[in-house]
C-alpha cells in the first residue's frame, strides 16, 4: 500500500510540474520564482482547508460545513475588529480559531452523542452556520474601511521573503504532517477510516476520534476564516459560498479516498496546488476564468479514475475470477 501511495503522490507532483511547464512555455514570467511564491500564497487558504477536510475524509466522514464555519468565524472576528480596533491581532486569531473549533466541536458532538451520519449533520450545519452569520451580522457587511490596518496587513507582512500567510500555510502543513504520521491520534484516524470495527477492537474509541477530527477541521476553518476576510477585505454572509465542494475536490485530486482510510498530507497539498495553479494560470494564458470550473471538474474525474485503477482491492479481483470461472 505504501508503495502505491508514494507512487500516486509522485504522479501528482509530475502533473503539477507539467502544468507549470505547459504554462511556462508560452509565458515564462509565470514560472519565475517570485510568481510561484505568489501562486503558493494564493493557494495557502485552500491548502489549509484541504488538510482539515483530508483528516475528516480519512476518518470516513465528510465535513460539508467548512465554508459556512469559515464564513461565521471570519464574520465574528471582523465584527470584533470593527467594534474594538485595539484588540491585538494575536487575540483575534485565537478568537477565530476558538470560534471555528467550537462550531466544529458542535458537529462532532452531534455525531458522537447522537450517532447521526456526519454527512447529514454537516449538511444541516452548512445551512445553520451560514444562517447564523446572517443573524450575527444582521445581514450587514464589514467593509475594508471598518477593519484596522493591522487586521488587514498582518498576513501581508514579509518575513524572510514570504508573506505571513504563506508561513501560516507552511506551519499548518507541517503540523498536519506531524499529526497524521507521527502521533497515535493521527494513526487512529487512519485506523478508524480503514476499518471501524477493527479499530474498535484495537481499543480506539471510533466516535471520539471522529469528534476530535471535526474539532480539527473546525479549528482550521476558523483560522482560514480570519485569513480569508483579511485577504479579501470584505465580510458578508456570502463569503466562500459553495467553497466546501472546491475543498473536497482538492482532496479528491490529491488521492484521498472518499471510502476513508486513504490519504496523505502531501496528496492534499498537491491536489490543492493543482487547483491553485489552474486558477492563477488561466488569466495569464488569456482564458476566461469561467473555464476554471469545467477544467477542475475534468481533472477530478481523470484523477479519481486513475487512482481507482491503482487502488483495486485484491479481494475484488478474486471474486471476479470466481465469476468468470
Amino acid at each position, binding site marked *: 500500500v505504501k508503495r502505491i501511495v508514494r507512487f500516486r503522490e509522485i504522479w501528482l507532483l509530475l502533473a503539477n510540474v507539467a502544468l507549470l511547464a505547459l504554462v511556462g512555455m508560452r509565458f515564462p514570467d509565470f514560472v519565475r520564482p517570485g510568481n510561484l511564491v505568489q501562486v503558493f500564497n494564493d493557494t495557502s487558504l485552500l491548502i489549509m482547508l484541504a488538510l482539515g477536510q483530508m483528516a475528516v475524509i480519512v476518518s470516513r466522514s*465528510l465535513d*460539508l460545513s467548512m465554508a459556512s464555519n469559515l464564513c461565521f468565524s471570519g464574520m465574528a472576528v471582523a465584527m470584533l475588529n470593527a467594534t474594538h480596533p485595539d484588540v491585538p491581532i494575536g487575540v483575534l486569531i485565537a478568537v477565530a480559531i476558538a470560534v471555528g473549533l467550537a462550531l466544529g466541536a458542535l458537529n462532532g458532538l*452531534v455525531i458522537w452523542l*447522537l*450517532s*447521526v*451520519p456526519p*454527512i*447529514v*449533520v454537516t*449538511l*444541516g*450545519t*452548512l*445551512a*445553520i452556520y*451560514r*444562517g*447564523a*452569520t*446572517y*443573524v450575527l451580522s444582521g*445581514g450587514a457587511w464589514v467593509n475594508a474601511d471598518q477593519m484596522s490596518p493591522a487586521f488587514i496587513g498582518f498576513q501581508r507582512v514579509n518575513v524572510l521573503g514570504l508573506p505571513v500567510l504563506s508561513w501560516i500555510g507552511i506551519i499548518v502543513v507541517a503540523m498536519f504532517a506531524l499529526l497524521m504520521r507521527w502521533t497515535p491520534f493521527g494513526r487512529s484516524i487512519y485506523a478508524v477510516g480503514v476499518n471501524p470495527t477493527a479499530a474498535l477492537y484495537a481499543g480506539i474509541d471510533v466516535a471520539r476520534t471522529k469528534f476530535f477530527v471535526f474539532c480539527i477541521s473546525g479549528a482550521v476553518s476558523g483560522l482560514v476564516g480570519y485569513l480569508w476576510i483579511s485577504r479579501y477585505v470584505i465580510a458578508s*454572509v456570502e463569503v466562500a459560498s*459553495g467553497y466546501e*465542494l472546491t475543498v*473536497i*475536490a482538492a482532496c*479528491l485530486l490529491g488521492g484521498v479516498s*472518499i*471510502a476513508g482510510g486513504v490519504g496523505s498530507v502531501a496528496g492534499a497539498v498537491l491536489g490543492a496546488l493543482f487547483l491553485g495553479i489552474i486558477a492563477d494560470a488561466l488569466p495569464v494564458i488569456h482564458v*476566461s476564468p*469561467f*473555464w*476554471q*470550473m*469545467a*477544467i*477542475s*471538474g*475534468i481533472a*477530478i*474525474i481523470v484523477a*479519481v*479514475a486513475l487512482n*481507482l485503477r491503482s487502488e483495486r482491492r485484491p479481494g475484488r479481483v478474486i*471474486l471476479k475470477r470466481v465469476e468468470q470461472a
Partner: protein
Amino acid sequence: MRERWVDRGPIPDRLHETAWRKLMRWEMLLAAIAVTVFLLNSAASPYFLDPWALSDLTFTFTEKGLIALPMALLIVSGEFDLSVAAIVAFASTLMGMAAQLGTSTPLVVAIGVGVGIACGVGNGLLVAYSRLPSIVATIGTMSLFRGAAFIILGDQAYDKYPASLAYFGQGYVVSVVSFELVLFIVAAFAFGFVLHFTSFGRRIFAIGANPIAAHYSGVDVERIKFQLFCLTGLMSGVAAVLITSRLGSTRPSIAQGYELDVITMVVLGGVSIQGGAGSIPGVVLAACIMGLVTFGLGLLNIPSPVMSIIVGAMLIVVIALPLVWRRVLLKRLG
C-alpha cells in the same frame, strides 16, 4: 407466534407489521409535522389560508421535489448525485441558446429534457460502468456541467424565450392548480409505483441493502444503477424546463445549491443515507414540509438565511430523534 408462521405457508417477503408499528412509521411522524406546520402557519399569518397563497406555496417545492423523486431511488440504491443542480444549469443554458436562435417551444423543451438525459447517461457511465464512487464522480461532473454553463454564458444571461414556454412554469391546469403541481403529483405516483410495487423497485432496495448479495442473486447491479442515473438526469432536465419557464431567463448560477436542498428533502423523507431503505410517500411529505416551512416563514417576513437555520436544524433533529429514542428504549429494556 411460531404457529402462525407455519400456518401461513410460504415465507413472507417482509416481516409482519403490527398495527402500532404501522402507525408509528416515519411517514406518520412527517405527516404530523406537516399538519403542525400547516396549523402554525395559518395561525401566524392571516394571508396563509388563501387558495392563491397555497398555490404559490406549491411552487416552492415542486421543482426540487421532481428531482428529489429519482434522487430517492438513487440514494436507496446506495448512490448519490450531486450534479443535479449543475445539470439544471447546463440544460437551461442550452435551452436558452436554442431559444435565441428562434427555436420553437417544443424543440426548446426537448433540448432541455434531452440534455438532462445526456448528462445522466454520462454520470451513469462513470459510476456504474467505470466504477467511480458516485460522490466523487458527481462532484466532478457538477463542476463540469456548471462550468460548461459558465463557459457558454459567462456573466451574460439569456432572456428571450418563446412566449408559449411560459406555460410550463407559470401555467395553471384548473383554476389554482398549477401545471408544476400536477406534474409533481403524477411523477410522485409514478415513482411510488415503480419503487414500491414493481420488481425493479425491489431490486433497487436489494442493491442498496447489499450490492454483492444482489449481484449473486442475479440482479444486474450496474445496469440498474445506470438507469437510475439516467432517470435522475431526465428529471433534472424536466426541472430545468420548469425553472427556466418560471423565471423566463437563464444565468449560469441558476439553481445554485439545489443539490443540497434536494438531498435534504430525501433524507428528511426517511431515506437512509447508507441506502437500502426509504419510501416515496416520505419524500413527498418531506418536500411539502420544506415548502410549508419556507413559505410560512416567508409570509412572516423572516429572511431566507434564518429560514435555512430552521431547515438545517429540522434536518438534524428529525434524523436524530428516532436514534435517540431507540437508545432510550434500549436502555430501559436492558
